[in-house]
């Protein structure tokens, strides 16, 4: 076990003047201002201490000291510490050392800031466009403060993303941007040799909605939870909770204990329904629609309860900064307990019916295999990691809301394949039911909303992580003036997990592609949340090039 003081002394002793300042506004968060030239070394040092890379946050600090700021956030899971390495580079030469060669998961974050803030990363192995549309003009960096939030540059002709070279002797099969196996737009170019997958390139971010920019410029603190909730249709409360906690942390403010308990219950309700949903979808993807129908039938009860409790079937709108909007009455509590009992019983039946089914085993065992070490290297999260022997769970490692009082197990299997994910998710559903029962039993009385007596001080940093059904959600917030955040960075669980998909696909059969991609429960809209809106979808240029574009554009115009 490391304490925060030990981390500080270790960094201080080894890097001395390269570590300029420590800030520790909250017990378990350490912010270290470090020298730009030592970013890579210190990052590796943190990884060496048992750290896990979470996310990088880039922000525009031009107005104050003419720099672009960059933060690498890490989690020391065993020690309940978040370490954020803050550094900055002058805006006329914003070059940083890339940490991607050592921490492959940072690849996307860094590419994101190449696109959005115009940073440069020396030594990045794949400095391609990630987020912006292919026809977005060069030199316009939408996350910089000078770019207006509603800027719409004109579309350009004949620009397309250059896919990676296919390995020799391989054929490229395009999957997407619209494809029956993908429920949202994303483009996988899969390189196959016969039926075996030899590689994969991903071009996503087609449903980029510019939420972060929108919220940083247009909305106020307490409007953002509703937008945050709409980042994801399945795990909305997760984002709202994570955002709200970040604001509360930046303000140095505690909400009432009852509100924390209700948040916990909402999160677990969401987990129950999400796991059942995923189980159904996974069944559907391997052509086993019995599970699909039955899992969704069982799930329906909790959806209706959600509607009763919150007023809506999904996008509950329960969680705002300062607490929750509705209380759980004793009648609702009894009803919830009843529903949980039925769900538990039914889920046991489903579990028994599929656990020994050899046809499911054949489709999922040994599929999407990566080793535990690779999983760690790629910093995968959630059930995907837990199915591959990595014992992490934010609820236990960094307790938030009322999880510090809850007793639950974290199921971990080491089968390292899709079957493991199925098992983990089913077992987690039982754990979630256990947690809801405990929370309902021990919930203290009190108000549901706590009011802020003072304004939130600007430029306070806060990082929070919440365990979503699909993995871990990280929100980084820098508070700002005018009652709205200066910078708000969301990292959804699909963001790291999707980066691990090429590794999972390697050497598998092409027919297993849907279930492997499905096994991470991809949520492309979650992943694609940042900056500007305009990405037209007709451009599959490696199929029919300009022709298709002309056709789709003609159709689009004809439709007007």
């Amino acid at each position, binding site marked *: 076990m490391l304490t925060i003081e030990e981390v500080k002394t270790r960094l201080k002793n080894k890097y001395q003047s390269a570590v300029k300042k420590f800030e520790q506004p909250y017990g378990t968060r350490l912010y270290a201002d470090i020298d730009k030239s030592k970013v890579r070394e210190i990052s590796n040092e943190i990884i060496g201490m048992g750290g896990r890379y979470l996310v990088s946050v880039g922000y525009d600090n031009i107005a104050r000291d003419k720099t672009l700021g960059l933060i690498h956030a890490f989690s020391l899971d065993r020690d309940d510490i978040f370490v954020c390495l803050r550094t900055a580079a002058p805006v006329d030469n914003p070059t940083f050392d890339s940490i991607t060669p050592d921490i492959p998961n940072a690849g996307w974050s860094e590419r994101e800031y190449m696109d959005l803030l115009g940073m440069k990363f020396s030594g990045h192995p794949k400095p391609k466009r990630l987020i912006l549309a292919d026809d977005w003009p060069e030199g316009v960096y939408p996350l910089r403060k000078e770019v207006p939030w*509603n*800027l*719409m*540059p*004109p*579309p350009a002709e004949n620009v397309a993303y250059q896919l990676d070279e296919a390995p020799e002797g391989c054929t490229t099969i395009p999957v997407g941007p619209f494809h029956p196996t993908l429920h949202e737009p994303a483009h996988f170019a899969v390189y196959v040799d016969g039926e075996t997958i030899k590689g994969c390139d991903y071009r996503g971010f087609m449903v980029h909605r510019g939420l972060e920019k929108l919220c940083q410029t*247009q*909305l*106020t*603190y*307490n*409007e*953002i939870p*509703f*937008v945050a909730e*709409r980042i994801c249709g399945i795990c909305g409360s997760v984002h709202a909770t994570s955002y709200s906690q970040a*604001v509360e942390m930046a303000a140095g403010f505690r909400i009432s204990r009852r509100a924390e308990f209700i948040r916990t219950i909402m999160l677990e309700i969401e987990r129950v329904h999400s796991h059942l949903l995923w189980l159904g979808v996974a069944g559907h993807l391997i052509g086993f629609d*019995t599970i699909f*129908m*039955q899992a969704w*039938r069982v799930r*329906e009860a909790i959806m*209706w309860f959600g*509607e*009763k409790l*919150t*007023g*809506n079937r999904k*996008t509950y*709108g329960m969680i705002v*900064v*300062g607490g929750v*909007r*509705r209380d759980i009455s004793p009648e609702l509590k009894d009803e919830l307990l009843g529903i949980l009992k039925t769900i538990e019983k039914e889920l046991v*039946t*489903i579990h*028994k*019916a*599929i*656990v*020994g*089914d*050899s*046809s499911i085993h054949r489709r999922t065992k040994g599929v999407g295999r990566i080793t535990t070490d690779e999983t760690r290297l790629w910093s995968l999260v959630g059930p995907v990691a837990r199915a591959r022997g990595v014992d992490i769970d934010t609820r236990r490692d960094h307790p938030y809301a009322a999880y510090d009082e809850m007793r639950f197990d974290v199921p971990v299997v080491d089968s390292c394949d899709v079957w493991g994910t199925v098992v983990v998710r089913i077992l987690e559903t039982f754990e979630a039911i256990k947690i809801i029962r405990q929370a309902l039993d021990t919930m203290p009385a009190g108000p549901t909303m706590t*009011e*802020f*007596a*003072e*304004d*939130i001080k600007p430029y306070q940093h806060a990082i929070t992580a919440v365990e979503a059904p699909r993995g871990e959600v990280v929100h980084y917030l820098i508070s700002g003036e005018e*009652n709205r955040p200066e910078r708000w960075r969301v990292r959804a669980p699909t963001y790291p997990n999707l980066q691990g998909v090429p590794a999972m696909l390697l050497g598998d059969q092409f027919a297993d592609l849907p279930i492997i991609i499905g096994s991470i429960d991809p949520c492309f809209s979650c992943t694609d949340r940042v900056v500007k809106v*305009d990405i037209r979808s007709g451009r599959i240029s490696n199929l029919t090039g300009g022709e298709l574009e002309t056709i789709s554009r003609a159709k689009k115009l004809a439709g007007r």
Partner: protein
Amino acid sequence: MWLTSKIKQVLLVLRPGVVTLKYPFEPHPVAKNFRGHPSWDHHKCVGCGGCAAHCPARTIMIRDVCQDLRVMLYDGSRCTYCGRCADVCPEDAITMTEQFELATNDRNDITVSMELFMLTCQRCGRCYNMETTNMIDKMGLRGFRYDNLEARAVIPTATEHFDEKMLEESDRYQRPQK
């Protein structure tokens, strides 16, 4: 193993039988407290604009056509039914109804417009000051508002005194073009 699993699966399917609802041929009532289409009670509304200031989707627009006449317009085509407007309304003039069958090909069907005769506070020029204790819920735009109702656009400026120039300017509002 395979056969026993299949038998269990058959039982799993047979036991609950058919659960399909006959909706829309049979009505499917929603839960109490459901957040459906919001409805405004023009008798209660004082035109404070709290709902407009707190609407995350910016579906509620306010246009002061003159010192005494305020037009409030709710455009349901963009509404996310979060119910925040009903929460913050100091007069309880907004209720979330149980209506959810709102599909339409004309957005005027789900648009509500109210014209309110206003008295102006001599001191501050506004009426809404409910949440002074909660600093995070400060009202964004105070005073006179000039949203463009035709373009359904929120103009993010407000003035303390009624300003005809602003009114004209907002008339010419154009959405950003490509």
